[in-house]
């Protein structure tokens, strides 16, 4: 593009290609245009992945902020149209990679709604889902808080956050076989039951985690530097949240106790006792407090879910009885971390031809889902995560769309940061806690 075109659209453009730096500076100084356009990202440590922010600056003040996304678009929704319904969980788990269990659950709840089997998913599977989701909420919030601290110049919260998250990661690895991208929640239940000793391990986490959360609170709750960087920064009140469709901790930090776990319960959340974290500050600090309190509430839920799993629901199935949907084998987690079932293999390979055919058909062809569309919303750590699933009656989804909270909430960047200082943009982005894998899908 010609320089003339650039200047017509962008104002005075300085092309610096070698030469004396002093000449450039003198040239700029002579111009009366103080506007400076800065590209922050897409590769920048404080943009939570590949987010690009185009900031127009007047001195230190941000006069215009535009976010550019799409750098991590991987076509997950399109890919799912060419895989079976069960294989879909493997894709959705990779969207928002910090809260995989939520992605899987939203998708599976939607598929179950289409199948009309919501009432027949075993209670034990629902309790395990709740426990896993709340563990995941803690790990997601710990990353949010940890990176938050680092972006505002404190490295200790980062180290604490990641160290404590490791406890949850270890637990996930023990239960599902993988640290991330579990594909653990499946239509009809969960893929494997808890391995021996898992209940004790979760119990240990319940003992240790409150101390760890308290440590982070000690570091940040009344830290004067942290308070000055976060209080009254990136203000977004309830009106703004409603207009921009913001949900999750940002909404709850503006004074509205809207939490789908309470208002429109799913997976049996109506049977658990917990409080909804609310703050009235509408600023970054309030969002921090909401997340911290949510972690503490999550621990309460995990404790109740664990009591159920180890108590009245002990020994119950974790997958729907319907053989046309439930995976044919109740896989157990082997020492190699892979699911396996020697009994089942002996059965299909040695004694029953029909069982072998059924196994083969269900795994390669998959099950059919009656035509229609369903939308299942859940409360993910970032806000309302909804899965719109359309079926044409076949063995593969006709269309899957995810209402990703990060995608939606990122729209608030201009509202939060325009008119503020450039350093506060970092705080604003961190308080939204976007994960670009989820934003771009």
């Amino acid at each position, binding site marked *: 593009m010609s320089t003339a075109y650039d200047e017509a659209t962008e104002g005075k453009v300085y092309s610096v290609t070698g030469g004396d730096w002093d000449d450039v500076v003198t040239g700029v100084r002579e111009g009366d245009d103080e506007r400076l356009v800065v590209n922050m990202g897409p590769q920048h440590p404080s943009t939570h992945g590949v987010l690009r922010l185009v900031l127009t600056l007047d001195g230190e003040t941000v006069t215009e902020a535009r976010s550019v*996304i*799409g750098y991590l*678009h991987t*076509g997950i*929704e*399109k890919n799912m149209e*060419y895989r079976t319904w069960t294989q879909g969980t493997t894709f959705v788990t990779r969207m928002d990679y910090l809260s995989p269990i939520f992605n899987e659950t939203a998708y599976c709840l939607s598929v179950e*709604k*289409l*199948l*009309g*089997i919501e*009432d*027949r998913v075993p209670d034990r599977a629902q309790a395990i889902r709740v426990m896993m989701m709340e563990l995941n909420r803690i790990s997601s919030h710990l990353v949010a808080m940890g990176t938050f601290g680092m972006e505002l110049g404190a490295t200790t919260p980062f180290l604490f956050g990641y160290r404590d998250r490791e406890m949850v990661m270890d637990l996930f690895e023990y239960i599902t076989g993988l640290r991330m991208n579990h594909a653990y929640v499946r239509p009809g239940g969960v893929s494997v039951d808890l391995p021996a000793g898992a209940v004790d391990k979760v119990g240990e986490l319940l003992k240790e985690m409150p101390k760890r959360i308290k440590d982070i609170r000690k570091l940040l709750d009344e830290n004067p530097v942290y308070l000055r960087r976060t209080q009254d920064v990136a203000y977004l009140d309830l009106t703004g949240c*409603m*207009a*921009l*469709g*913001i*949900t999750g901790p940002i909404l709850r930090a503006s004074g*509205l106790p*809207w939490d789908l776990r309470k*208002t*429109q319960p799913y997976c049996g959340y109506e049977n658990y006792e917990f409080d909804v974290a609310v703050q009235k500050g509408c600023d970054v600090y309030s969002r921090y407090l909401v997340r911290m309190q949510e972690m503490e509430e999550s621990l309460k839920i995990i404790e109740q879910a664990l009591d159920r799993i180890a108590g009245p629901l002990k020994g119950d199935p974790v997958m729907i009885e*319907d053989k*046309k*949907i439930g995976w044919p084998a109740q896989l157990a987690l082997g020492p190699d971390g892979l699911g396996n079932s020697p009994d089942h293999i002996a059965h299909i390979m040695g004694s029953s031809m029909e069982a072998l*055919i059924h196994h083969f*058909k269900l795994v390669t*062809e*998959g*099950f*059919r889902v*009656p*035509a*229609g*569309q*369903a*939308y299942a*919303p859940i409360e993910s750590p970032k806000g*309302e995560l*909804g899965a*719109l699933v*359309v079926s*044409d*009656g*076949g*063995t*593969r989804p*006709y*269309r899957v*769309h995810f*209402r990703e909270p990060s*995608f*939606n909430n*990122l*729209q608030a960047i201009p509202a939060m940061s325009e008119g503020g200082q450039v350093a506060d943009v970092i705080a604003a982005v961190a308080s939204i806690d976007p994960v670009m894998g989820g934003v*771009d*899908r």
Partner: protein
Amino acid sequence: MTSPDNLPEVPDAKVPDEAQAPEPVEAPVVRRGMFGVHDSGDTSGFGGLVVRRQPRLSTPRPYGGYFDEIVDALGMDDAIERVVVDRGELTLHVKRERLVEVCQKLRDDPELRFELSLGVSGVHYPHLEGEELHSLIHLCSMTHNRRVRVETSCPDADPHIPSTVGVYPTHDWHEREAYDFFGIVYDGHPALTRIMMPDDWDGHPQRKDYPLGGIPVEYRGATIPSPDHRRSYS
């Protein structure tokens, strides 16, 4: 295993407060058999398979639950093409020229108060002549704790739907996404540009007619067919 009704079992007890299941009006046959085999030499075992398309649903009153109240309070029957109640969800199929009006009323009427929008998404149905592209809005009323889906359609030849950014500012990015992936042009959107794909990208990737790439294999110039041309069970 070749039975066409190889569907999961259906629960016996019907949900009492749910509306009467809509009667299938018409169920055109999409395909017989499988893998494109039709003559008597069909050894695939799928010769008797009849695949029917989902009939166009339209639920008669009463809709059940709070759905009747929503439709009554809206009171714009001339703007609504049909109402569908399916799987406990209410869908209003709205004429595209009345979409903004309907959204405005859904948001502002004290009896409706759908103040939170969960965004816009598209679906491409190439077989539905004259309404190939659908645009779906999911709304939530926090005041009354209700949900509704507003569905609008437009033909492929004239892919225009009025933008609802004026009513729900959150639709800004969502409409850009639907435009990017389906080519639906939202008239009145402040800056309808691509959001996920690069600006100079050709085509709209989530349309069903978007060409997918095959994978070349290094064996006598062979190619693995693209996913939409591989044989499949659906």
